[in-house]
């Protein structure tokens, strides 16, 4: 498997696709910093404002990355189907599970490398502004969650790419899947926000729309999906502490407890990763390679 990994990493880092995406992601990060750095002076509060720019840049990075990963993984892996390389690897003695895991490791590590490079770029202005005004714990939790999400999301796209031999179809299904996931996440979040708002209005005796209040079972189901679905977690990387604390007052919750909640979330993502990968390997083992 070591030889296979070396060969795949070499193929990834020599491919034009990887360098195009790397350059585009660097340009995107530089633009995010430049765009916010050109804010009118009345919105700036010395170095503190860069903390918000940094948070926004991280949030937009992961939002854009999920689309980039859909395209990159699909084009990178499905080329092997088109060239017959996967069949050759199996003929030369590698098991299907090893072939699958190699692709998964290469795509995930590539995603992490791109994230680290872009994190370094958006952190550069801190050398000028300093890091006062930044909450180190929140930033650390955000970075860890994004890194875990990159791995979980790559597991989903590797599943599609390994099972769909056509390059074009693989790209289409991956992008359509992520759009459906994002729209579903938006609708789930909308339901929960309306429910919370209506309950608050009801408690304060003001007019509220009864139809927007969810039943107990309904609310539990939506909340569970809100935590489990990777795209919901992507949306909540921006208000991560509120999300982890279930929108209670975070000033009353110790950092250690928030870290434990984060560990729980990462565990959920790990379970998603394991289930998706196991399903992918099982189906790939039975797939007829033409």
């Amino acid at each position: 498997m070591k030889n296979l990994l070396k060969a795949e990493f070499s193929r990834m880092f020599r491919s034009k696709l990887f360098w195009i995406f790397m350059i585009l992601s660097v340009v995107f990060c530089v633009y995010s910093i430049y765009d916010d750095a050109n804010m009118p002076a009345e919105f700036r509060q010395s170095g503190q404002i860069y903390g918000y720019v940094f948070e926004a840049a991280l949030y937009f990075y992961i939002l854009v990355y999920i689309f980039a990963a859909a395209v990159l993984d699909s084009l990178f892996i499905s080329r092997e189907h088109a060239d017959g390389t996967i069949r050759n690897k199996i003929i030369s003695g590698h098991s299907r599970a090893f072939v699958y895991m190699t692709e998964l490791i290469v795509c995930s590590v590539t995603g992490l490398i791109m994230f680290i490079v872009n994190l370094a770029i958006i952190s550069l202005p801190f050398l000028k502004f300093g890091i006062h005004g930044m909450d180190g714990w929140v930033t650390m939790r955000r970075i860890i969650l994004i890194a875990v999400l990159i791995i979980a999301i790559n597991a989903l796209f590797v599943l599609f790419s390994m099972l769909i031999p056509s390059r074009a179809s693989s790209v289409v299904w991956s992008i359509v899947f992520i759009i459906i996931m994002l729209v579903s996440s938006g609708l789930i979040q909308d339901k929960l926000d309306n429910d919370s708002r209506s309950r608050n209005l009801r408690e304060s005796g003001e007019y509220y729309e009864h139809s927007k209040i969810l039943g107990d079972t309904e609310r539990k189901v939506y909340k569970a999906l809100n935590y489990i679905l990777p795209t919901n977690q992507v949306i909540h990387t921006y208000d991560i502490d509120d999300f982890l604390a279930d929108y209670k007052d975070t000033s009353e919750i110790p950092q250690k407890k928030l870290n434990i909640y984060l560990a729980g979330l990462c565990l959920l993502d790990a379970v998603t990763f394991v289930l998706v990968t196991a399903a992918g390997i099982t189906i790939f083992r039975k797939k007829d390679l033409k």
Partner: protein
Amino acid sequence: MIRLLRTEFARCFTGKLFWLVVLFNVVLASSFNVLTYATTKSGDFSNVFTDKTLYIGLISMGLTAAVFVAFHAGSEFDEGTIRNKLIAGNTKTGIYICDLAVCSAALIIIQYLYFFIAYAFSYILFGALHHSFSVMMQLQLIGALGTVAVTAFMLMITMIVRSRTIAVTVCMIAAIVFFIACVAIINELEEHSMELLDAGPEIISAEKYAVLDKYSYVYGVDSENLFGTELAVKEFFYDSLLQSQALRFSDERSLPYHWEFMVIYNIAITLVTTLIGVVSFRRLDLK
């Protein structure tokens, strides 16, 4: 060319691609209303208006067109069909126009199919809608011109790129970027019009203020944050992007303000992109 058209229409309507896209749109058209029905309490049906779901087909037409055009026209390059058509005596311009006609017709059929299915489900499950049927049909007609414009744009990309995989990737990314751009532009122009409303007679004449008050937007008036070329460009995209048009259709109860410009821009985009596409296709070598 008539024989080529007949063959292309037959290929389109007997192929899996068209029926898969139709199936996807049928599921999409029905699912929003069915999900709303399933999650609404029984006493609240009369308060539910699902007009917005009627235009989701148009909002998603960018992605639908990207997939359909890239697979339908892009496959011809991969399979060598275009070379065969040229050998059989057809011109490059004729092949291009045929592809445009077939893709436009197929996507307009899909657009109207989505609309009628969504309308049927809305009416059966929830009853009345805000828009009158005649207004909806006029909006769909403007939307059909927008569909042709989007199809022409995607076909231009596909014929320049000459590969199904790259075409579908570039076209889908373009559709997503246009959608994000149109949401950002709509939000920015809404803030711009709020700023004008608050500023009142200081920066806007009484006549234009009356237009702003009636339609919630007035064109060509600079504000402190948005002015000059930037404002003009954003107003152009506000009227010309199909997703922007569709979002405005779903928000308003009558024909949107500046609808004539939408029609003109749709026709202009179709003509310009077709011209660029034909000229590029004629000059490029077939691989």
